[in-house]
């Protein structure tokens, strides 16, 4: 903040104004600087005041504040950054947030103190973030970890607190848990934690359908027989396959069909971002994270499509494995995902490895049907639907979807227009949710009452 010359012992300063201009002078009451000893905790004046091995690790305890201050003071950049990232990765801090935190610490370095080390290490932040988070993702894949007991630091790995474990796994614990309600985006097929794989053969209308869903979610409106929420949402549509011209046409079509241009729809076409790495590359995922942050967060991302956005052979596990940790991270951040994918020679199943369906909540398969009068026609069936219950079965029924004269329609049970769930059912569902919310609220706000004396 201050001019480096201020450090010079005998440095003196002019006082007064020039040519009759009186300076502003403010007197601030307070303590003398030598009486503010607690500031020394933050006041590491000259670089290299700390040695490697000391920072943030005294007595084996991790001290985040000390590590951040080691960066801010210039005492240590690399080791402190690695330690912080490792800790954040382990404690579930998202990669984007970790990156932002680290950048924030670097930006706090007093500009005149930014030496070549600072510039070198600042330039390496993305590399460090991807390295540490990639390493942690690999470890996660290789282990099964149990978190035993409370959210506080538990006992060491080799000391299992059996009582806490029993309590944690008990039905009482399960029934008493306060689990947030689903935040629906479209009927019961899409909520903010849904991971959907939308599979179809080439040319069937995947993009048109995905855009229609995008618009409905962004507007909060109904689409076919699926109920909208009535609330607007933000949706990022990532297209990796079409040309800009074609994408523009598709967007125009979608606006015309929806009858509006929802402000919450954002479309990224990779032709506009030729340097965007594939999502199987950590930097590609980081770029999307940055875009999400720049948009102020989104509720749904549509990835169109898997083959175009990931590098590698889709028959292999590796491309999807690379992206899996991030997919889970998006879910933790309550960002719904629709992954559009092709079928292979067999048009009844998705191309390549089946294992990617394991992590999906919903797998929707589109197949061609004959409807000569329609512009688009396909059947839709859900080959996987984790959220399906007797109460919402209609949302997951197989159906035929058509687009004729810019109007979408669905046919299920023989009736064009789809079989909408009666409003009575919907009302009961909302009532049930309201009651659950009330119970959660009461649990959250209950006051402690001592046991009565008998």
């Amino acid at each position: 903040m201050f001019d480096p010359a201020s450090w010079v012992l005998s440095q003196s300063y002019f006082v007064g104004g020039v040519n009759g201009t009186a300076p502003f002078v403010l007197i601030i009451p307070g303590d003398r600087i030598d009486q503010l000893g607690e500031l020394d905790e933050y006041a590491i004046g000259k670089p290299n005041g700390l040695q490697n091995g000391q920072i943030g690790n005294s007595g084996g305890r991790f001290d985040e504040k000390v590590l951040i201050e080691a960066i801010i003071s210039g005492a240590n950049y690399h080791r402190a950054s690695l330690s912080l990232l490792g800790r954040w990765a382990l404690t579930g801090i998202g990669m984007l947030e970790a990156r932002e935190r680290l950048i924030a610490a670097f930006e706090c370095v007093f500009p005149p103190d930014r030496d070549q080390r600072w510039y070198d290490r600042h330039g390496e932040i993305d590399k460090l973030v991807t390295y540490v988070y990639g390493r942690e993702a690999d470890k996660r894949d290789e282990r099964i970890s149990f978190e035993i007991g409370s959210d506080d630091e538990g006992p060491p790995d080799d000391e299992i607190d059996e009582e806490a474990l029993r309590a944690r796994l008990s039905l009482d614990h399960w029934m008493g848990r306060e689990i947030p309600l689903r935040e629906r985006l479209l009927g019961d097929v899409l909520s903010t934690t849904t991971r959907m794989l939308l599979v179809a053969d080439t040319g069937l209308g995947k993009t048109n359908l995905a855009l229609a869903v995008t618009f409905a979610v962004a507007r909060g409106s109904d689409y076919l027989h699926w109920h909208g929420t009535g609330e607007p949402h933000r949706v990022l549509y990532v297209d990796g396959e079409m040309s800009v011209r074609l994408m523009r046409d598709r967007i125009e079509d979608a606006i015309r069909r929806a009858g509006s241009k929802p402000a919450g729809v954002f479309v990224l076409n990779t032709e506009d971002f030729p340097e965007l790495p594939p999502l199987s590359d950590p930097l590609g995922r980081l770029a999307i994270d940055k875009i999400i942050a720049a948009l102020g967060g989104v509720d749904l991302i549509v990835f169109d499509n898997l083959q175009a956005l990931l590098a590698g052979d889709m028959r292999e596990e590796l491309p999807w494995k690379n992206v899996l940790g991030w997919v889970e991270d998006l879910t933790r951040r309550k960002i719904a995902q629709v992954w559009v994918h092709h079928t292979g020679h067999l048009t009844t199943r998705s191309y390549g490895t089946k294992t990617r369906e394991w992590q999906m909540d919903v797998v929707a398969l589109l197949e061609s049907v004959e409807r000569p009068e329609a512009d688009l026609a396909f059947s839709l069936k859900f080959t996987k639907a984790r959220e399906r219950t007797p109460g919402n079965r209609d949302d997951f029924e197989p159906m035929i979807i058509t687009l004729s004269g810019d109007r979408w329609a669905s046919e299920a049970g023989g009736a064009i227009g789809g079989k909408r769930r009666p409003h009575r059912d919907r009302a009961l569902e909302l009532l049930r949710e309201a009651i659950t919310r009330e119970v959660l609220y009461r649990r959250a706000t209950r006051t402690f009452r001592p046991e009565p004396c008998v």
Partner: protein
Amino acid sequence: MIFTTFPDKRGLDAYRQDATPEELAEFIKTTTRDARDKLPMIKFALFGEKRSDKGCLRNDENVTEITGLEADYDGGATSIEEAAEIARQAGLSCIIYSSPSYTAHKPRWRLLTLLSKPYPPGDRDRLFARLRASMRNTASCSILPHGCCRKATLSEA
């Protein structure tokens, strides 16, 4: 409040002063010259008789004790009012005044802060680091997520 003034930047003469903050503020406000180089200089330190090759008393070897700290800000981003607010939040007693090149678009100011007693010159780095921390932790570090800041940030005030 003990400090030294020099009639000009040559530092051929030095005058030990004793004044209240209000008196010093008034001195800063009422002193004007037709050129910056003709303005007097101030230093919160006491000087001996060792002169530099050019006869200047204002040199590091001639500092016998420090009685306060001076800091110069020419970053042009933080206004004098913001600086005052930061100092208030830090609980720091000080005088802040605009430098001759101050403009509203590019604020430049100086901060003078006293010590409760004279200190050896060797303590200045440590104390200046503390001063820098007091101003930095309340301002630029407000973006840090984990409360490395000692006081509330400006935006939270």
